[in-house]
């Protein structure tokens, strides 16, 4: 989530800068129901005890989400204008170079599947577990590109060359698990598919970033300015995508003596997979990058008002990500320090509290933000540094 990237774009002063370096890094994860201790154990290691699992289970609904985003971006708005002829349109644009690495991971899952994975089948003997509508999406990619930035409005457009390190897209439309208490017989039915592009780099492609500012004239301090941001909108082509399909069911109640004697574990496993309609193939595929669209109000750093409101909305081209809205109050403590507190809802989680502080120095800005300081099932940290010289 990068919707506060440009929260403090003091447009007037940037128009005077010769060149700008913008660095940002972020990492956060969130869930609609899974308690934070569980993903923390995956990130930092440790034992997930049964009480944590039980507490998460009580908070989970039938459908749940968990997601993770991490990244680092660097942008250099060069001093070179497109055209030195002030009569041409290019005289108002400077060249900009950008690079970054992004990781997106999202999963939608049922409460039953969470219980089966973290508690095992024993507590659910006799229950039909619904694992349907499982969806897993994960993409890691790097990009490098160039474009133009409008020196007056700070609107920009960049085209990137993209290298995808790995990509996973898996979905289970139908899935049920039933284990009978008396015989321990397992009835499993699965229908789904998965695509893995794993060799590094797995795919190459093209994406563009658009930062479009609109609203009032830049010198009208009392009027609002808005930002429409598109990031990583593009595709990559993989020629070595491994595709798996499952569509079938099996019942397993143990083998007979003869089967144990005559068959190998491999052949028995293959028998299960055949029953499940398992197929594996290698195909070429297009990968739609996790593009992000955002519409947000831009806070004016030089506004005479001490108290202001901020708000915005964001969505991503990912089925595991729900549209996110946020709103809050911005307070100008003093010119060099401004801060804010608000609420966000959507994305990978439910309602939570966000807060930020921005520090303005002579030629630079530093922004610290967390989107999960209360009511949270996750963690969030965002750092942005901007230098104009």
């Amino acid at each position, binding site marked *: 989530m990068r919707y506060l990237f440009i929260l403090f774009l003091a447009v007037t002063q940037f128009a005077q800068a010769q060149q700008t370096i913008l660095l940002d890094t972020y990492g956060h994860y969130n869930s609609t129901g899974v308690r934070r201790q569980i993903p923390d154990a995956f990130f930092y290691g*440790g*034992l997930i005890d049964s009480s944590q699992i039980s507490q998460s289970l009580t908070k989970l609904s039938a459908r749940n989400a968990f997601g993770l985003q991490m990244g680092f971006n660097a942008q250099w708005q060069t001093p070179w204008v497109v055209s030195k002829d002030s009569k041409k349109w290019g005289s108002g644009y400077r060249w900009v170079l950008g690079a970054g690495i992004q990781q997106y991971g999202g999963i939608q899952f049922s409460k039953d599947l969470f219980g089966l994975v973290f508690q095992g089948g024993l507590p659910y003997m006799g229950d039909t577990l619904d694992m349907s509508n499982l969806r897993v999406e994960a993409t890691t990619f790097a990009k490098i590109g160039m474009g133009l930035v409008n020196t007056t409005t700070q609107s920009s457009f960049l085209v990137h060359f993209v290298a995808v390190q790995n990509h996973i897209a898996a979905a289970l439309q139908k899935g049920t698990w039933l284990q009978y208490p008396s*015989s*321990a017989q*397992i009835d499993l039915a699965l229908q789904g598919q998965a695509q893995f592009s794993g060799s590094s780099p797995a795919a190459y492609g093209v994406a563009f970033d658009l930062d479009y500012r609109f609203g009032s004239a830049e010198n009208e301090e009392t009027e609002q300015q808005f930002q429409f941001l598109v990031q990583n909108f593009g595709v990559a082509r993989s020629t070595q995508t491994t595709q798996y399909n499952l569509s079938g069911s099996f019942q397993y109640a143990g083998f007979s003596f003869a089967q144990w004697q005559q068959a190998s574990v491999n052949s028995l496993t293959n028998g299960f997979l055949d029953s499940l309609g398992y197929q594996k193939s290698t195909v070429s595929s297009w990968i739609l990058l996790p593009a992000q669209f955002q519409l947000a109000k831009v806070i004016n750093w030089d506004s005479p008002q001490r108290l202001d409101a901020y708000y915005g909305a964001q969505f991503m081209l990912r089925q595991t990500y729900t549209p996110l809205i946020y709103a809050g109050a911005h307070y100008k403590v003093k010119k060099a320090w401004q801060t804010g507190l608000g609420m966000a809802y959507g994305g990978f989680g439910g309602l939570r509290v966000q807060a930020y502080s921005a520090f303005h120095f002579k030629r630079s800005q530093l922004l610290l933000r967390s989107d999960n300081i209360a009511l949270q099932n996750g963690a969030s940290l965002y750092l942005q540094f901007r230098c104009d010289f």
Partner: protein
Amino acid sequence: MAILFSSCKKEATRWHSDWVVPVLTDTLSLSNLYNDSTLSVSGSQINIDLSRTLLDLGLSDLVKIPDTTISQQYQANFTVSNVSPGFTFVNSVKTHALDLGDIQLKKVRVQSGQIELKVYNPLNTAVLYQIELPGVSQNGQVFVQNYTVAAGTVQNPTIATESINLSGYEIDLGGQQGLEFNKIQSKLTLKTDPNGQTVSIYNNQVFKYEASFKNLRFDYAKGYFGSTLLADQQQFTLPYLDKITNGSLSLPDLSLDLQVENGFKMAVRAQIEQMNATNTQGQSVSLNAPSIGPSMFLAPAVGSWNTLQPSSLVLHFDANNSNIKNYIENLGAYQNIAYQLQPNPWGNTSAGHDEAFANSRLRLKVSAQMPMALNADALTLQDTFALDLAQDLNKTHVTAATLLLDATNAFPVACDIVLYFMKDGQIMHTVVADAQLASATLGQIDPQDGLLKKKSKIKIVLPPALVADLQDLNQVAVSAAFATTDPTTGLAVQQSIQANAFLALQVQLQLQTQLRP
């Protein structure tokens, strides 16, 4: 620095989950035990009719013609010039003797096998070869093969080869007059190509053919089959008995028959020299009876083909004439029988009129009949299986395991189960089941099928120390001690096995796992 870095090492993410996995679902009945046994139901009891063939010899085992090559050739003594096309220059018969030891065959019929013909032509024009085997015929037609072999040279004669299936051919081995034996005739006729050129035949040109009889098996033979002594020792292991490590078994009275069957039209002498059996404790018992040791004579079979009536000799062993009960109750897994069989013990008394047909067999069969009842007292079967359950404790692994056995037993036998987990043959862990697989005698009659049954639930808990050692263990010995205990006295008594008795088993494995993604 090392301490500093090691303290920063990420601890593994892990959690515990509990699973139950069905492992085995099966129902064992007596039909699972021996596929060559006939179980007959008599009232509510089962009788065993065990029948096993120890020796089964056919015609091809007694009468064989080894792979044999006969050859006939022609070589002129002097040069014959200006041989016109179509000139016949050889027409001769040759008799070949087969080396068959003391067997003197007059006639055989080929069941399978082939003859491979190889013809050489050194002449500089094509030659027509006619190969005739006067004693070899099928449906009255004598075996004749004609070949036109292209021109060759002395150094490089043209060679024609062909393989002909001889199945169904009769071979008369009586020679020209029919009074001899082991004789086969061939006739070679050579003619120059009628459409060829005039040539000369030189004395260094060898015209020949070779006929190789291969893999001949017969379904009829007549002659004298010799009197070669067949003496052998048959050793075989009875399944399951070699797994018994302890205990005793007492059986009801039983009888055992050894039957010698002669389907050949010749006299046969048979002698059972010795029968003994050794059990897994090394105790041997020899079968003692008047018929063990002396020679017995079987008359020739009578009839022919479909009307063939073998002669037979039955040696009966029971409690009145032998120690057969002790012999069986010794549970000898390793059986040893020494015997002699000799055809024509008095020589060629049939004047070469021994006969054998497709269905002629010389058999030695054993059969036993007994009611299916037993008295087992801590009769212990133990078998060892390879174990490969290596697991990496730094990855997802099992932390605790319990085998759950759910059994319905309709046999009057109780069973105590012990597992020995071993490393290179040395016992490292011993696991005893928490309960006995109960005998049907402790149960009740099921009105559905009228069988006495008893259900048992048994837990075999593999302790954490054992689970932790699994990666080092490579063998498991399963020991099952059976007892036919009287439910009131607690003493081992003889119990009859119900008709349709079965043992239904469900084995589940309850696992606690530590998952480490």
